[in-house]
Every structure is written in C-alpha cells, then in structure tokens.
C-alpha cells in the first residue's frame, strides 16, 4: 500500500504545467490564474489524500480526473453565479463537460502546452515578462521560487506578473497556434524565450547550484517539446536543443566547491555529463536537415567541438574558428567578434589572437575583452602588457567571482 509507488522526479511541476496549459486554453489566456488555482487545488487534494494513502497506480490519471472534476464543478457554479472579475471576452469555447474531457486527451494536452509556449513567447511581451510567465505557468514555479531564480524578491515578481497580465489583456494575446508566414517568426520567438530561460540558469549569479540546474533542465524540457511537435520541429529547434545539451553538460564543473568560476581550460572533463553530450549529438543530427543554417546551428556546432574534445589542448580550434566566421556573418555583434578572436588566437597562435583583438574597437569597457588580451599577452611572455590588460579588466568587471579570478591571474604573473 505504501511502499509500491514512488513519484517520478518533478512530476507535479511538469503535470502542473500541462494542466495549467489545458485549463488556460479553456478559460482564455488572461485567466491563467484561474487555471493555476484549479491546478493548485488539485495538487493539494493529492497531498491530502496521497500522504496518508500512498501514491495511486496512475498518479497522472488521478490528477487529471480530479482537475477535470474541479473544472466542471467550477463551470457549474459559474453558470449559476457568474464572476464578474473574469475576462470572458477571450473564452471562445462553450465550456461543457465533454469539452473538458476532450482537452485532457494526450495529443490535446501537447497542443495546449504548445499554444501556451507561443503565448508566453509572444513578441509584444518583454523578455523578463516572458521568463516570469513561462516559469509561473509552464514550469509550475511559485512566486518565491521565481524570485529565488532571479535573485529578486517576491514583491517584484508579483508586480511583474501583474503587469504582464495587464499587457496580455490590453494586447488581446490569446492561446492560438499561429499559421502561415507568421508561424516561422513566432516559432523563432519561442526558441528565443526558451534560450533566454536556459541562459538565465546557465549564467545565473546564484550560489545555489540547484537553481541553475533547474532552469537549465526546464529549458531543455521545453526545447524538447518544441522538437516533438510537427509544427515546431524545425531544424533550428533541434539545433537549439543540441546547444542546450552541450552547454548543460558542463554545468556541474563550472563552479568549484567555493562557488568560484572554473574556466573551460581547468574544468574536470571526466565530470561532464556524457548522456547530455550524446543527446546533444542526436539533436544535432536532427538539426542538419534542410538548407537553413541558424545561429543555433553554429553555436551548437561550436559547443559540440568543446564538449567532445578530450583535453583542452586537443580542442579543434580550426573548426571552431570556421564556425565563428559564419556566425559573425549572421550576427556581427562585438561579443561574437571577441569569441572569434579568441578562437583564432588558439588556432593560429597568441600573436594572431592579439592582432584580432586589437581590431575590435567597441569593447573598450568590457572586462572579457581585456582578460582575453591579457591571456594572449601572457602567452607571448609580454608580462607588463598582460598585467596592464588584466588591470583594465579588473576596472570594468563588476562580478566579485570574476574579479577574484582576474586577481589570481595578476598574482601569477607578478611572482
């Protein structure tokens, strides 16, 4: 009775995301809080029942049945005493029992989640609004958990969500799958939102390793959903998934036990997540169909060469340099130029790297630029030039962790 079933990890979070998507489709996007309330009631019913009776044989089915019943109950009450506070303009459905049942069929659930992703990644929502909304609805995070992920406080997040809902109302954003020429643009927007979520985790300043891991795995999960739906399973979606897998494979080795950054060169490659690298390779295979080469393809390619190099010294810098050449053509941003210059420095020697860096004029306040310059000067034994570059880096750097790293480099040269 009590020792047979165990819940799979994150089951509630994931099922909550699905149920919220289903019910939001029913009630309309501006009413996603109502959907969330019903789902929360459902999960609490499970808590009160399962904690004493054990977990049922089909927990997901149990949750869906309870959610359906609660929804039908709610609709019945609404018929008798309508709640004025709700925005019913967006509700197109006739909202009857059969319809609720039909929406909980497996393919409809998948469809609802996809609609939710399109809505959350809507171009008229700001990046931070998109992120908060994705985490709140699709990923089932509480306001407190979102605040923790953003190193913010609950009040700020609450306000942000409130403003987002106002925006949804004002813009009339609904849960529909775009069609025709709009589709590909909107899919690109959703990919961007997913990658944003990933980077929020990957680059998070949070000391809490779990926060990083959770955001990254959630982004990977949503990326996987994009890849498994015929409408959104474009090569670029697979490329994005590949990129996230390759990057996330290093997640555990990017910080040491004291929370200090460990550079790629010093990372313990034996601790890289091999299953992730394999999944990344698979996704990259799927991405190689069709003629279109997206930025995600190139970045995934670069990440692939890093992830599969046995040692830092055996990294295929030639191939990486080539991919950066292509990337610069697609996205001529200063940071891409910087990365390319670094790749050239490794592929063709530090002097060439310095030359390339000196051609970049727009990063004179960027500490990554000066660190790269310092590193190449140090390699060429230009000690004073290296120290000067590192001092500039220290001047422009705001992160305490990165400052510590730069200070170490100076100390190493000053011995």
């Amino acid at each position, binding site marked *: *009775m*009590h*020792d047979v079933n*165990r*819940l799979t990890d*994150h*089951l*509630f*979070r994931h*099922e*909550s995301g699905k149920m919220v998507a289903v019910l939001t489709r029913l009630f309309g996007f501006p009413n996603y809080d109502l959907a969330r309330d019903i789902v*929360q009631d459902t*999960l*609490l019913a*499970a*808590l*009160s*029942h*399962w*904690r*004493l*009776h*054990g*977990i049922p044989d089909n927990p997901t089915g149990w949750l869906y049945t309870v959610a359906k019943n609660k929804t039908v109950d709610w609709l019945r009450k609404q018929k008798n005493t309508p709640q004025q506070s709700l925005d019913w303009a967006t509700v197109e459905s006739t909202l009857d029992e059969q319809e609720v049942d039909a929406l909980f069929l497996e393919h409809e659930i998948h469809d609802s989640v996809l609609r939710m992703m399109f809505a959350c990644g809507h171009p008229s929502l700001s990046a931070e609004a998109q992120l908060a909304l994705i985490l709140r609805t699709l990923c*089932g*995070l*509480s306001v*407190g*958990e979102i605040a923790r992920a953003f190193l913010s406080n609950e009040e700020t997040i609450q306000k942000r969500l409130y403003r987002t809902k106002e925006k949804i109302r004002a813009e009339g954003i609904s849960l529909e799958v775009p069609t025709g020429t709009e589709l590909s643009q909107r899919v690109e927007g959703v990919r961007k939102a997913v990658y944003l979520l990933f980077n929020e985790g990957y680059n998070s300043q949070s000391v809490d390793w779990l926060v990083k891991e959770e955001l990254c795995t959630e982004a990977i999960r949503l990326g996987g959903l994009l890849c498994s739906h015929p409408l959104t399973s474009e090569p670029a979606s697979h490329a994005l998934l590949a990129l996230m897998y390759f990057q996330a494979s290093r997640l555990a080795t990017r910080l040491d036990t004291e929370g200090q950054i460990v550079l790629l060169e010093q990372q313990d490659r034996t601790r890289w997540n091999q299953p992730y690298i394999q999944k990344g390779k698979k996704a990259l295979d799927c991405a190689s169909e069709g003629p279109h080469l997206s930025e995600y393809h190139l970045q995934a390619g670069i990440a692939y060469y890093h992830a599969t190099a046995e040692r830092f010294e055996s990294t295929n810098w030639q191939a990486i340099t080539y991919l950066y050449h292509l990337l610069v053509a697609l996205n001529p941003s200063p940071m891409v130029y910087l990365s390319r210059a670094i790749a050239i420095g490794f592929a063709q020697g530090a002097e060439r790297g310095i030359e390339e860096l000196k051609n970049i004029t727009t990063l004179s306040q960027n500490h990554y630029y000066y660190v790269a310059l310092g590193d190449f000067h140090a390699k060429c034994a230009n000690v004073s030039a290296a120290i000067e570059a590192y001092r500039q880096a220290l001047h422009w750097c705001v992160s305490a962790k990165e400052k510590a790293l730069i200070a170490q480099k100076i100390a190493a040269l000053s011995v």
Partner: protein
Amino acid sequence: MKKYMLTFWNGIQTEDAFAALSPEAIQAEIQKWNEWIGGIAAQGKMLMAEGLLPTGKVVSGSTKVVTDGPFTEGKEIVGGFMILEAESEAEAVALSMGCPGLATEGRVEVREVQVFN
C-alpha cells in the same frame, strides 16, 4: 499488541501556507509522508489512515446548534488520523516522532484505543 490512534494537528496558518506551496514543494511533502507511513506499514503496524478536509460542521450541545468550520475558535485543526499497532505507548510515541507535520510546528496526539474484556 495495542492499538493507538494518532491525530495530526496543524496550525490554521500552516494550512494557509500549504495552499501557497509550489508543485515541487507539494510533491516533496507527499514524499516525506509516504516515507514515514511506508516505514510503519513495512513493519506491519499500520492499520488505517485518513486525511480530513479543513472545513466541516460542528453540532453542539442539547440544543444541537450546527455551526460551520473551520473551527476558528481554536488555533489548530485536525488534518488527519491514523490507527496503528504498537507494543507500548512508548513505541507508538517513537513511531510518531517521524511525522513530517512536526517539522512545520504541528502536533501528533497519541491515544491508546480502549479495550474492554
């Protein structure tokens, strides 16, 4: 073997806090309870357990006045109960020590079931 009834008491505020739990936290809470009760069941000592909804009615006195719950006069409500078997009160108390509700400042009341023979 004697029978004991364990009632799980919680502050009303704790109930409110539960309502705000994230899906992940709710799942973790279920896991904790299942581990605890699973341990008792594995020893063959669990007889039954039921959870109670936080609302209900109270029928009082000879006038049989019916009032609504939640029972706000008290600061605590019973969230559920369990009947288990144990060799002694000491063992029943020891088993109740693992109750996850204690972590949120709840209480477990351990009462021996009366037997006449």
